[in-house]
């Protein structure tokens, strides 16, 4: 009896407590952990500026100091240059003031004082945008460099500089790479490049993540309303992982695709494919919100950027004896001049040709002296048509240029021309209309529109400006121009787009000699084309921008015009002579030279 009772108690306890899910169990090993499923490319040794310890004298220390901010995300390298008393209060944000030394460092060996004079080029923001400074004035910076007791090497013990990160333009050149990201224009018809600076110390695997964050944070300020950022509240919730299986996986939050916009995904992927170009091995896998990832590996994205249509070898033209002539050595040099009927091809002083996928456009300034007039025409590729007169322009005519050359719809074409220092826009028909400028920088002498049709660089009053063209409204408007401060020029004569990131600039140096330079769209960096071409003033400059797919940042096709002569920029100025004219050979006549060179763009 007692035995039964005990048995029952044991069973009941076992039953009540023994079954069910246990409170705690031992660790159960399931298997070995996963191995790395990706092939992380360690990348080449990132270029980093020298640190404090590398300097053995005060001047080198300052030089290094002015480079230290490059890619220094947590300011540690910069702070290391500062003595304790300065370091304590040094709390700089991510913004870096990019300066350009106007002269060499001033210092006396053996003395702690180092001073220099520098012009502020702009502010390099955390998102890689360099905002140009509007103040061309040079500031004096003075610093004290001396050893600190108990520590080796030199430290900056006193500085007159404000508590900001300083970096020279040379460091910007050396330790950053230019990276173009893209945003859709307001019409959603084309991508507009946005140049950013990416530290070279950033490993390749992290670059997609950084670019994605730039895209999410919106376009640079100066592009303004003409570009459309990603929808508000879009976020990149995760890193872009290292590419695996030739695929780059990009994840965006669901807000990236506004509901009801069927083409949004298509636009988004093209924007990403352009922005991440070179980082996508083969396939882009795009995942938006919780939807299934979509894979893209075609090259069909490329036509979203108009600049991708730019030819490797442009068709080149000059005006010779009032006639548009092709140049030898250029593409289709044996073809007829587009659009113009041969009979009409006479009496021109300047001309511009533009093309779209379906049409070709011509704008010429005909006549001489006070009877000049603007004539335009558009025809399907390979066809010819009559010229229309465009009225409404007064004053000295400048060179016309085509800003917008639409496919299939010649009526939507927009050209720009300066007349008497003012800017006019014209179409295929009708009168020219003055373009509204938000400010009055002075008489405009040269204007160039980027292939995207929105970014504009112009020269007004000898100064270089950039702005954006808004074609959205009834009339053409330009946003407030920003002045760019390319180095070395006292007066700027002409500007042309050299690539998506560079402008070709021609002007007079401080010593009165002329030069041609490529400068970045923010004016910070330069690429010297022709440092010195003598005292002759440059009157106009044309360039055929490089195709972004080619990877070249500077075009090889630049030409300028001095009083009477046309030159190619080919390492040295090379004069365009009658020998370069294609078609029927001409005998050289004195006073009759090829001039006003231009491209079919």
């Amino acid at each position: 009896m007692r035995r039964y009772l005990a048995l029952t108690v044991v069973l009941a306890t076992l039953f009540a407590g023994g079954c069910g899910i246990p409170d705690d169990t031992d660790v159960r090993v399931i298997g070995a952990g996963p191995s790395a499923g990706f092939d992380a490319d360690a990348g080449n040794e990132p270029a980093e500026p020298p640190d404090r310890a590398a300097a053995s004298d005060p001047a080198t220390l300052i030089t290094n100091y002015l480079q230290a901010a490059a890619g220094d995300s947590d300011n540690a390298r910069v702070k290391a240059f500062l003595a304790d008393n300065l370091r304590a209060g040094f709390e700089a944000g991510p913004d870096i003031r990019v300066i350009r030394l106007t002269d060499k460092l001033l210092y006396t060996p053996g003395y702690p004082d180092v001073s220099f004079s520098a012009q502020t080029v702009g502010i390099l923001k955390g998102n890689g945008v360099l905002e140009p400074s509007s103040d061309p004035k040079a500031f004096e910076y003075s610093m004290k460099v001396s050893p600190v007791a108990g520590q080796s090497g030199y430290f900056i013990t006193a500085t007159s500089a404000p508590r900001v990160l300083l970096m020279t333009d040379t460091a910007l050149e050396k330790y950053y790479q230019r990276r173009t990201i893209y945003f859709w224009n307001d019409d959603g018809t084309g991508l507009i490049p946005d140049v950013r600076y990416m530290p070279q110390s950033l490993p390749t695997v992290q670059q997609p993540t950084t670019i994605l964050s730039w895209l999410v944070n919106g376009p640079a300020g100066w592009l303004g309303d003409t570009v459309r950022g990603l929808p508000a509240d879009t976020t990149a919730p995760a890193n872009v992982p290292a590419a695996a299986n030739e695929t780059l996986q990009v994840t965006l939050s669901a807000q990236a695709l506004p509901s009801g916009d069927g083409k949004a995904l298509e636009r988004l992927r093209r924007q990403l494919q352009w922005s991440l170009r070179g980082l996508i091995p083969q396939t882009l896998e795009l995942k938006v919100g919780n939807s299934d990832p979509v894979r893209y590996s075609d090259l069909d994205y490329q036509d979203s950027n108009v600049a991708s249509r730019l030819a490797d070898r442009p068709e080149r033209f000059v005006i010779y004896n009032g006639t548009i002539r092709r140049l030898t050595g250029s593409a289709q040099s044996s073809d007829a001049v587009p659009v113009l009927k041969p009979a009409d091809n006479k009496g021109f002083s300047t001309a511009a040709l533009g093309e779209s996928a379906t049409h070709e456009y011509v704008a010429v300034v005909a006549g001489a002296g006070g009877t000049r007039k603007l004539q335009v025409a558009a025809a399907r590729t390979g066809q010819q048509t009559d010229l229309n007169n465009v009225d409404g322009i007064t004053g000295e005519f400048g060179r016309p240029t085509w800003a917008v050359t639409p496919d299939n719809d010649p009526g939507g074409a927009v050209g720009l021309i300066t007349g008497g220092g003012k800017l006019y826009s014209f179409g295929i028909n009708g009168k020219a209309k003055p373009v509204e400028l938000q400010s009055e920088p002075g008489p405009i002498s040269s204007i160039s529109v980027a292939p995207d049709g929105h970014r504009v660089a112009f020269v007004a009053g000898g100064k270089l400006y950039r702005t954006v063209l808004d074609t959205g409204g009834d009339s053409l408007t330009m946003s407030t121009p920003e002045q760019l401060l390319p180095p070395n020029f006292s007066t700027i004569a002409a500007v042309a787009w050299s690539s998506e990131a560079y402008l070709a600039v021609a002007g007079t140096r401080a010593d009165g000699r002329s030069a041609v330079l490529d400068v970045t769209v923010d004016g910070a960096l330069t690429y010297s084309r022709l440092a010195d071409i003598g005292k002759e003033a440059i009157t106009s400059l044309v360039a055929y921008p490089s195709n972004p797919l080619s990877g070249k940042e500077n075009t090889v096709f630049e030409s300028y015009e001095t009083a009477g002569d046309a030159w190619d920029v080919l390492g040295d100025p090379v004069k365009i002579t009658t020998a370069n004219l294609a078609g029927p050979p001409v005998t050289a006549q004195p006073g009759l030279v090829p001039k006003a060179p231009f491209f079919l763009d």
Partner: protein
Amino acid sequence: MPVRRTLRVLRRYFRMGMRRFDRFVAPARREWRRSLQLRVVALTLIASSVLVGAFGFFVAQRSANILLNRAQDEVESSMQSKLRYAASQLSVHLTALEPRLQNTVDITVNALADDDPAESGGSVVSIRADQIPGIQAVTSVKKLDTSGLITRDLIKAVSGDGKVAEQVRTAEVNGKKIKFLVYGSPVPTNFGHLELYYMVPLTTEDSAANQIRTTVLVTGLALVILLGVVAGLVTRLVVLPVRDAARTAQRLSAGLLDQRMKVTGEDDLALLAASFNQMAANLQRQIVRLEEMSRLQRRFTSDVSHELRTPLTTVRMAADLIFSEREDFDPAVARSAELLQAELDRFESLLTDLLEISRFDAGFAALDAEHADLVPIVKRVADRLTGLADRVGVTIELRVPDEPVIAEVDPRRIERVLRNLVGNAVEHGEGRPVRITLACDEAAVAVTVRDHGIGLKAGEERLVFNRFWRADPSRARQTGGTGLGLSISAEDARLHGGWLEAWGAPGEGAQFRLTLPVRSGDRLVAAPLPLIPRDRALDSEEAGR
């Protein structure tokens, strides 16, 4: 030594406890021994409890395992995708020193936690870097202390050995104890590995398991109780008629001969009841018949005695006349007259005894009790028999107390009993002394009569009280009485509520003991004198010597 002492104390307490327990359960035990129904029900309960318990345990354990396995499978597959995601997110970092690494860990944990479907509510994701200093562990639920969930053993297996491992742990979340399935796996990176832990609450599974367990428990309990009730009812069906039969049998044995069992239906129990009733009826008939016969016999004896009395009186008167005139007759006739007289005396006393016996048998004998001193009675009996004793050369020794022995007795009957006993002793004394002893205490008086005659054989101690019994049937009925004396004496003793007993051994003589209560109607428990004489031991010792 203290251990042994402690053990001893413990053992003592245990024994005490057991004793108390025994006392406590004694009624239950008694009930257990007595009640077949209780035993059957209890055994059914125990057996079914064991069976149902084992079965329920199996079912509950099995379902809990299934639930847990399902949860494990789910977590494992979920873990795979989480692992892939974490590894891809961390792949962009080439060294552990990158300042953005912590940020990546943060957003990865958040993304993994957000990624979870809502129904797995409360699951927790944590990334730790136990191998890499400088990286903070990040948990998707900030307030949760994961130290109880991610145990040192798990960390060792996952972080140290680089294994995928799992564990079930219980943690307190918002004051509630919740079971978590903790899953850990290393996440490969370019700089060693971090560890991803995924903690999924088993609330649903646990409550499901508990519900199953409760259901099984309740069902099992109900089943056991039901089985007990069924067993009780079934046993009751069998036990009730048996009890009825037992009760009826008890009543029958108590003399209530007309008691019968109720017969319902035609089953085995009905057959039992019918057979029982038949048996009872037969018994009753037999007993009634025997009683009737016995009554007729007694009546016959009584009637015969009475009927013989009247002619005997006439014959007696004539015989007395003849006897008184015998000297006038010739000697042979005179001798006949004497013989007639003696046999008539015998006949008369036989009749008297028979009448007395039939009076006892008819239940007419009444006790005429009074307070009387037994000493004079004993002396009187001895005196009266002295003549006879002298004739056969027997001396009668008297051992009576000096003070009076007062008891509530019928002196006439006592005197008859004693006369009978002493007469027998003298008769069978074979010339050896006869000793009469009287003794008393508060409750009883005893008289023993001891002789040293031929004694009694084994088994004759009871036969001596039978009617007309003789030790040696071949012995002539010359001596002795009617053969009814001891029977009547025994009846007299019984009438007093006393005992009349005999002891004897061949060659050692015999002793008779009469024991009477001091107060009439009291129940006797002991006699003041032993039945076996004290001198017997001495005699045997002497014989041995």
